[in-house]
């Protein structure tokens, strides 16, 4: 199907075409030592050919897997292109993967070669190497600190480049149906699964995205999210090869905003976390600068909050706001040239989406999965409904199955899960519909509203359908709440673990003249419990307004003494809740929420490093509070 319009094209053959046709056009840029250095298409192609020749000389051939461990850098993209040149399969991994995770993944894909960016990554690979017999060579890019490594299976990128330049070889004769990538899922569940994509599938996706997003050779994108995330790889490497746009790589994650300002990308991939970070930086700077800009900014934010709550966008900003606030701010953020920014990875809070849109930034929510590709649905220009992810893009069929799950059908999806026939078979039905694992609704106008993941949806004991995220997203709209985790499957009612936002609650505590010594202390104060209880009561009032949701009111909650973090394994790399891990870690707390105990011993809930020692005056117990509920609902557990 796909083959009809791309022929037997592979990503490598397209790259070779670009090198022949787009002479002098920039393809890859990297800021290093204060200067943007660039590679044109021919430069990229020739360097990749050389690396490919060196790979062949080291015994790699079509079908072998090469793993990539590093940040977005031209050399990473070049090595991926080289892998595609020899017909190999690129497996981009998350640079912050633990050694254990890395070992597991290298064994699963039977990688023959690992491309590691620097000493830190090489150390990790060397740690697991004895258990990964398939790995023959580890290639590193940054030579810093590497001189002391004498291992024979280590080679520098420069060495490969030199070897390859001297004996070039041709590309492998593979077709578009050959596998090109293996992407790991972002692991909100227990195990990360490996989705295999063919060249044709990746190319089909890039074409669909280029049409839907209007991308072309004059576009610039900044690649800064983990290359292991399929979405970033598709928006950078694949999209560049597919539509000729240029990839700009920042100097380091610390210089991101400054580099973005210089690069002035025209198209950009963002996540809710990135937007949160940008908005909080902007807010801080606006608060510091004061003046008319600040009052315009405050008005804009409160309008966005209001319209976000009503899920309805109003007209654009006025002339005054545009001149005094939006234009300079966009310029500072490096978004003055930005035609479209795409938010993927998770649902974005409507107020946040509208805040950016009101700044004149064309931000849109995307919907996709690792298995179906990153672009199933997208909010259309001019009709952004903040609580939906927009309509299916051209070429994608979307439907809701009988069990309420969204399913999609189109070209360009994954071939299957690597080495897992059963899961591959279970993912697709006989008619070729691929299950997304998301429960959602499709409105009469075709716009898709996501409800939750299938595996987190449950039912209360009385049969009420319970989608944790629906309740949680209502709780987290408070600026005082960072995360909320609700439980209720098989129970009489819903209870919540709430993670307060240290910064804003801290600011509130300052204004109330409440002394506190840190997150744990803040989260244990009665006044803070009172503050959050008021908010939960408000949430309950809203829930009660809809009879079908009335039973979902939060009966009891607890404030977590420690932030949920990626490092602790409580959040996925993209910042999503890992429910199973949280439920396990806080099992005693969750039990206490439902058995009516007034408090619970902290045990594991407290920092394991022993930073917080509790004396006798402050026993290490976590209080549990009942929340005010509306109406006549069973409240046995809270009695």
């Amino acid at each position, binding site marked *: 199907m796909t083959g009809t319009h791309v022929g037997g094209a592979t990503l490598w053959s397209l790259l070779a075409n670009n090198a022949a046709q787009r002479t002098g056009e920039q393809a890859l840029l990297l800021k290093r030592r*204060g*200067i943007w250095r660039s590679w044109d298409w021919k430069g990229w192609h020739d360097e990749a050919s050389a690396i490919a020749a060196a790979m062949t000389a080291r015994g790699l051939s079509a079908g072998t897997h090469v793993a990539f461990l590093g940040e977005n850098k031209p050399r990473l993209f070049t090595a991926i292109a080289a892998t595609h040149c020899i017909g190999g399969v690129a497996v981009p991994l998350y640079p912050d993967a633990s050694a254990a995770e890395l070992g597991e993944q290298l064994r699963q894909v039977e990688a023959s070669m690992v491309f590691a960016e620097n*000493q830190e990554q090489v150390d990790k690979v060397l740690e697991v190497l004895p258990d990964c017999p398939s790995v023959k060579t580890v290639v590193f890019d940054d030579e810093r*600190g590497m001189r*002391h490594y004498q291992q024979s299976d280590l080679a520098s990128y420069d060495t490969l480049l030199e070897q390859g330049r001297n004996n070039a070889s041709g590309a492998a004769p593979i077709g578009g149906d050959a596998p090109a990538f293996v992407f790991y899922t972002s692991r909100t569940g227990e195990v990360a699964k490996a989705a295999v994509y063919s060249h044709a599938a990746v190319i089909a996706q890039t074409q669909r995205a280029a049409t839907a997003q209007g991308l072309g050779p004059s576009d610039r994108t900044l690649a800064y999210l983990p290359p292991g995330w399929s979405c970033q790889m598709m928006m950078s490497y694949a999209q560049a090869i597919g539509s000729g746009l240029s990839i700009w790589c920042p100097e380091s994650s610390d210089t991101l905003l400054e580099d973005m300002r210089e690069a002035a990308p025209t198209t950009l991939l963002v996540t809710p976390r990135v937007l949160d970070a940008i908005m909080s930086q902007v807010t801080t700077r606006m608060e510091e600068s004061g003046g008319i800009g600040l009052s315009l900014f405050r008005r804009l934010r409160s309008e966005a909050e209001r319209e976000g709550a009503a899920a309805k966008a109003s007209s654009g900003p006025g002339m005054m706001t545009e001149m005094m606030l939006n234009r300079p701010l966009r310029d500072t953020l490096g978004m003055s040239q930005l035609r479209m920014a795409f938010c993927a990875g998770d649902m974005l809070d409507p107020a946040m989406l509208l805040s950016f849109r009101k700044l004149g930034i064309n931000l849109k929510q995307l919907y996709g999965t690792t298995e179906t590709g990153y672009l199933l649905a997208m909010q259309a220009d001019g009709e952004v409904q903040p609580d939906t992810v927009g309509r299916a893009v051209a070429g994608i069929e979307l439907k809701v199955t009988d069990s309420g799950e969204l399913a999609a059908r189109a070209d360009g999806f994954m071939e299957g899960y690597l080495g897992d026939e059963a899961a591959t078979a279970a993912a697709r039905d006989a008619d070729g519909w691929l299950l997304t694992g998301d429960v959602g609704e499709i409105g009469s106008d075709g716009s898709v509203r996501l409800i939750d993941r299938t595996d987190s949806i449950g039912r209360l004991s009385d049969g009420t359908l319970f989608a944790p995220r629906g309740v949680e997203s209502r709780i987290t709209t408070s600026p005082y709440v960072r995360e909320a985790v609700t439980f209720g499957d098989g129970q009489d009612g819903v209870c919540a673990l709430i993670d307060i936002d240290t910064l804003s609650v801290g600011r509130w505590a300052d204004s109330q003249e409440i002394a506190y010594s840190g997150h744990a202390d803040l989260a244990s104060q009665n006044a803070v419990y009172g503050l959050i209880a008021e908010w939960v009561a408000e949430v309950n009032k809203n829930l009660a307004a809809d009879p079908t949701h009335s039973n979902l009111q939060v009966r009891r909650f607890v404030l977590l003494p420690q932030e949920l973090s990626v490092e602790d394994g409580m959040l996925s790399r993209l910042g999503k809740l890992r429910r199973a891990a949280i439920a396990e870690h806080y099992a005693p707390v969750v039990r206490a929420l439902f058995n009516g105990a007034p408090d619970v011993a902290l045990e594991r809930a407290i920092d394991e490093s022993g930073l917080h020692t509790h004396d006798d005056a402050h026993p290490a117990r976590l209080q549990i509070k009942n929340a005010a509920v509306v109406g006549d609902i069973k409240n046995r557990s809270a009695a």
Partner: protein
Amino acid sequence: MNVISETHFSERAFPIAGPVLELENISLRFGGVHALTDISFNVLEHEVRAIIGPNGAGKSSMLNVIGGLYTPQEGRIRFDSELLSGMTPGRAAKLGIGRTFQNIALFKRMTVLENIMAGRKLFNHATFLEVALQLPRARREEIEDREKAEEIIETLEIQHIRKTQVSRLPYGLQKRVELGRALAAEPKILLLDEPMAGMNVEEKQDMCRFIIDVNDHYGTTIVLIEHDMGVVMDISDRVVVLDYGKKIGDGTPDDVRSNQNVIDAYLGVAH
């Protein structure tokens, strides 16, 4: 930690060579105060040499003698086998002795980049007029300086603050910038006066890594004063121990650790 042990147990790019700096019978007095008494030791090319001792032992005085800030009443200093008399800070800099200070001495109102570029002053020969008119030599020198400065910025991982005014930086970063400015002069010997004073554990580890990287990468000979024994023992090749202005120990970290005089004076006895 890995970084540190490996530096010490594998082959060095710049193997430790002969003495580059020799101090013979140095005595320094301030009026009636004997700051240093009859001290002799040498520094080998490409090594990391530490000077340790309790408060008031004369460590900073020793460093200042090497750096030309103080002139000792007695004793001789040989640099590259050449006898030096009347060392001055300017002369020291020209000879290739760079340094950092215990109390940071940066240009507070200039940016990080400007501070590091200022460290290149020795290499600039263009006249005021050439610079003002941006004549070829001035431009060439400026480009060279910037390239070197950027290389240092990358080595010390301070890209994100290159355009930040120094006075706005936290202490640990200012220390790093000061190291950067000293490196900009491409010194043969680098004198570091308590490079890790007042830092937290993480900053100390970073600084250790940078010192080892500099020694490893550029072959710079390093003489450092440090309070933190653990740090010194980890990164130094040889250690001189001073107490009340006298040398009481000299040798590898292990030698020094087992030296009874040192244990009595500094390590074992509570102060």
